[in-house]
């Protein structure tokens, strides 16, 4: 229990990733699948931030000279997460616009009924 508590951020990130993957694999509504993709992305972002987190650390902006470098959290994962969020938004917008076109073509969002292409 103690180990679980001290690794709370990793546990939360892993849970989000697994929930996202579950939704993508199980749900048949395309909007829900896209929500799952976004949950997966969010989980990965939380994981990245957790990698660079220091307990009790402050934002990596150099304002007070009294702070030692070890009291800052690592800024690189945060920069990575910013990039990843932007990419995630791009994918989300593209996915939703493709789904709009798909609905115009097929009249349904159920992946079990969208079977125009033979495998």
């Amino acid at each position, binding site marked *: 229990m103690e180990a679980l508590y001290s690794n709370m951020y990793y546990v939360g990130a892993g849970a989000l990733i697994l929930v996202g993957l579950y939704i993508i694999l199980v749900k048949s509504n395309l909007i829900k699948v896209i929500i799952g*993709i976004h949950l997966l*992305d969010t989980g990965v972002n939380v*994981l990245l931030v957790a990698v660079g987190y220091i307990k009790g650390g402050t934002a990596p902006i150099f304002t007070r000279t009294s702070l030692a470098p070890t009291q800052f959290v690592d800024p690189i994962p945060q920069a990575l997460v910013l*990039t990843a969020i932007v*990419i995630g938004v791009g994918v989300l917008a593209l996915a939703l616009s493709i789904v709009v076109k798909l609905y115009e*073509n097929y009249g349904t969002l159920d992946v079990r009924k969208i079977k125009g292409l033979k495998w």
Partner: protein
Amino acid sequence: MVAPLLIAIPFLAAFAVPLFSLISKRISYYIPALALFANLVISLVLIPRVMSETIVVSIGGFPPPFCINLVVGPVGLLLAIIISLIGLLVSIYGVNYIKEGPKDKYHMLLLALLAGATGMVLTGDIFNLFVFFEILSLASYALTAYNRDRAGTEAAIKYLIQGSIGSAFILIGIAFLYGMFGTLSMADIASKVGGADPGFLFVSLALLITGFGIEAAIFPLNAWLPDAHSSAPSSVSAILSGIAIETGAYAVARILYTVFDSDGIMLLIAVVGLITLLIGEMSAFRQREDIKRLLAYSSIGQMGLILFAFGIATRAGVFAALFQLLNHMLAKSLLFLAVGYMIYRVGSKKLSAFSGLGKRMPVSSFVATIAVFSLVGLPPFAGFMSKFSVVRAALALKDPMFLWFVVLMLIATVIEAGYFFRIIQNLFFKSGNSLEEVKEAPLSCLVPISVLAALILIIGVYPQLVSGILDAAAQGLVERTAYIQYVLGVP
């Protein structure tokens, strides 16, 4: 400092296309060709410098490993040359071929895709690799759905869902690597990888290989490929099949050879490659109707062969893999381009509708035949030399297991010949359709495919023209200590 231009020019040109289309639509369609021609010239000029010494460009003025760096080695430059060459030919083709829809968006996305691909092969930073990979994938999802018809949107959403799971896996792998080593530079990770916990290393390796494997269409991850490559417009299929999946294979090879010192799983890679080869070729053989779907399945098979050659894990094996990669890029993009106009003229994707087309479209059919012979591996085309070097590299191991692998590979080649010769039979030796009004493809199609066919023939007859840079590229991939030294300076 000319190397960053290889990435900067296509990006700037990509965003210049919609701006110029406000002034004149016609001019903006020629921007991709101009930008990629500039790229081709720059990358050809760089060859002598890169062959003597790998160029490392640090961005931001910090020394490596604290900055994002570009590493222009022989392998990166070789792929950058082919990407800009095929991109140039496809953009010339696309000016006339794309007739409907928001055409300026098509040209913009095409350039963005090629910029992402060039960035992927030139970067030396693992997160930067991910970012360029995402640019490439986003552009290819959008281009797959370009026609906005039933097949295109369905294929695009399948591709998008699988691709975004893959990129999430890559990012998790990168997070693990950063957590272990506190660095993102591939050379720095490679220099520290020896002393790390093998369990964590294996997990991050598996995540990265799975993520890039989706783009490279390795066997259990290839479900999106036949749909996406057959539903996209043909010029896009040529780019997807000729550039996008190969950069995925490059990323897999770079991670296997340079970032991780992963000798232990090379046998697994070879076996997975062989399974991909057999599955791809058998699925293509079964495909009797849709010609683009047949070519897409054949791409899966060829990717399997490339992966198998990477799995041989000697310098000769990597040389063979890169040679096969080069051959597949040239021949498959040629085939998709040629077939694109055949489908457009005949009005059907069905293989049976092509009967007797050899008389009506003689040049396209002849050139497509060259590509088919090269993919099957007949002399004197490039495919013979590349397949021969795969076989030679596998037999040089003197391992009885690899002898059986070669037997299976040759069986797959026979299957490949079976379905490819069916195309030729349909083109030249069958008749019956009424094709009186079918004309030859226009010059904007014939010139690009003839250039590609000439290259296939020249490389097949004089393989020593490319074997120098291919050998240097194989050396650059296999020798990781040299790579680390180039990027980080002398340790």
